[in-house]
């Protein structure tokens, strides 16, 4: 099969997918969870419970406040102990609902059996309402409320539905395991999206380094007309939304515009699976699959984790020797962020916990720019990071605007390839910051 890729930039990185063959296992339940009220982009959800309330798994804790917001559900059963502000790992304080566990009781409305539900009975608007009330957000890492993404603004038309199963970040295997284990469910989720968007077809894009997921999904999609698997070249950042649209449709999302402006809707496979669970099984989003891996981890695993579980608890279950760890990263090692407080909770957007050794996490000394242009070749958005660095040093906002620093997707390819080890991504971030402030 011929593989495709996006037209500009991209880098080859070692994928380290050491946990790709390890089945997803359910993590032991923590005694205490901290469930943040903001696990998405937008306004924080409004708290609906009081201290002392008894909750079950699936009880609504906080309600979406406004259009761009999402419901938050309890992930364990027990008593609400505190509504407090804790460190989110990066030092910012976030409001969390702290629940102490008693047993493991589920709300009765959920269907927890393994039976496959293939019939989609609801109509378009009802389906969208279910997605909205189940608190589903983009689970690839951005956390944009899915209900908003699936409502197409007036005057615009979607013609392509792309399901993102690329997972181009090193170490992460959560999506790849999900595609292998829940292939049929994902296809039904795709069908639900088809119905909501009024599109007949869908393309499931998978990285060529996931042969088992490709085989499994290709075999199943034979039975579903209109759903196709497309194998994409293993190159970073293939999984970026704009890059993926370019790969599949050869369209380019113009600067400052959204995928819907070129008729595309992109959804992550984990989000699609959450949609299946919400619509067919009435299970709201209170758990997710995440990968615990990294070069400091001899025990790479894929866990099904309840939202709100402290990261320190996940690491303890994974028997990590914290003495040797230099850095704990939430998300993938390319775009993820280092955290400093391990009591931070797992959220709907946490796709992995990566542990790096002290040697790998040390920043190399940077030397002078030799203007080799490797960063320009690598940038998937066609920007010129070396010139952006110059403009940041001169604090030239006009130049930054001309260099389109706002289009930077912060994939980190420029910093990765730079032979002088200049932290170019940091300069791009400063450039974006300078343009965004008054």
């Amino acid at each position: 099969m011929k593989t495709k890729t996006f037209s500009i930039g991209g880098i080859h990185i070692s994928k380290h997918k050491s946990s790709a063959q390890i089945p997803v296992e359910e993590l032991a339940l923590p005694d205490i969870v901290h469930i943040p009220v903001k696990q998405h982009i937008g306004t924080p959800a409004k708290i609906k419970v009081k201290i002392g309330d008894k909750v079950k798994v699936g009880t609504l804790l906080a309600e979406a406040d406004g259009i761009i917001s999402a419901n938050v559900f309890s992930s364990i059963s027990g008593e609400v102990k505190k509504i407090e502000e804790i460190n989110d790992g990066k030092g910012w304080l976030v409001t969390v609902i702290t629940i102490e566990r008693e047993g493991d009781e589920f709300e009765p409305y959920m269907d927890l059996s393994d039976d496959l539900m293939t019939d989609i009975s609801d109509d378009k608007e009802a389906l969208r309402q279910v997605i909205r009330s189940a608190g589903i957000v983009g689970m690839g890492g951005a956390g944009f409320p899915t209900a908003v993404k699936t409502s197409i603004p007036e005057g615009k038309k979607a013609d392509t539905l792309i399901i993102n199963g690329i997972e181009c970040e090193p170490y992460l295997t959560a999506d790849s395991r999900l595609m292998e284990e829940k292939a049929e469910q994902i296809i039904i989720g795709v069908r639900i999206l088809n119905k909501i968007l009024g599109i007949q077809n869908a393309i499931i894009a998978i990285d060529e380094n996931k042969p088992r997921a490709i085989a499994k999904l290709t075999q199943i999609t034979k039975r579903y007309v209109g759903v196709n698997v497309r194998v994409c070249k293993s190159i970073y950042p293939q999984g970026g939304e704009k890059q993926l649209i370019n790969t599949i449709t050869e369209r380019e999302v113009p600067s400052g515009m959204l995928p819907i402006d070129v008729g595309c809707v992109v959804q992550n496979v984990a989000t699609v699976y959450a949609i299946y669970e919400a619509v067919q099984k009435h299970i709201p989003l209170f758990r997710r699959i995440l990968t615990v891996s990294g070069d400091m981890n001899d025990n790479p695993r894929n866990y099904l984790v309840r939202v709100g579980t402290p990261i320190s608890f996940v690491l303890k279950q994974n028997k990590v020797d914290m003495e040797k760890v230099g850095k704990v990263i939430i998300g993938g090692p390319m775009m993820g962020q280092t955290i400093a407080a391990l009591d931070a909770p797992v959220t709907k957007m946490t796709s992995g916990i990566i542990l790096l050794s002290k040697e790998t996490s040390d920043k190399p000394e940077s030397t002078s720019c030799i203007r080799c242009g490797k960063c320009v070749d690598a940038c998937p958005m066609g920007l010129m990071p070396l010139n952006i660095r110059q403009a940041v040093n001169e604090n030239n906002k006009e130049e930054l605007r001309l260099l389109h620093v706002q289009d930077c997707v912060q994939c980190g390819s420029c910093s990765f390839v730079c032979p002088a080890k200049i932290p170019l991504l940091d300069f791009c971030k400063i450039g974006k910051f300078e343009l965004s402030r008054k």
Partner: protein
Amino acid sequence: MVSAILFNILILSGLAVLAAIVLYWASQKFAVQESPLVGQIYEILPHANCGACGRAGCQDFASICANASAEEFQNLNCPVGGRKVMEKIATLKGVQAGEAERKCAVLRCNGSCQNAPDKVVYTGMKSCRAAHSVMSGRSGCPNGCLRMGDCVQVCQYGALSLDKETGLPVVDYKKCTSCGACVKRCPRGLFEIRPIQENMQVYVACRNQQKGAVARKNCKVACIACGKCRQINDTISIENNLSYIPPSISAPEEGEKLAASCPVKAIHFRQNMIEGD
């Protein structure tokens, strides 16, 4: 052969004469009548082009000074050159210079290495703005100084330097021209341009908006919004768990009292700031 060369020379000379005539005519026709005063004033100005006066640069400020009436001139001030420069311009114009008060930048944070010890190891790029994008702060304070000196780099008068012991930037009041470059650069907006009143200044050296108990966990000198300073002067505002002393409050009259009233020593009272000025 010779005739060809001669021919070329003649054509080119003809063109040159023609161009000279056109240029002379254009220079007469489109000449801009500029007051010689602008040039003279521009010569007096410091040529820093920093924009602290609120104008595009020194040339722009010079033309505004030249065209200003005696009354308007009272309100004009070059913060860099200060009173001396304005008086020179005033004598040139034959008017009276305004009584512009001297201002300088102050750092509204006292989260030094001692008061707010590091809790995390930051290994990234040594720039406050880069650090600001990935974390709340080395000490945990989300509003405090990141102590990496972006402000020191941007100050073109050398008025800022990082104190080796505290890690915080220190303002040299003699050199500070209140141009405001540090105010624009600091990602946390910690600098403020405040007037110097009779060589004295009083301000709250904290921007933390967390509740007192939370703020104190990270920093010993964080404002806890207890309201004691407000009992002395009720124009002091307390919003978002943070007290703010407006510049209208007189430092010589109330500065000492205010500083003494603060239980966490977040109010700074400076005296004898610019000796011999």
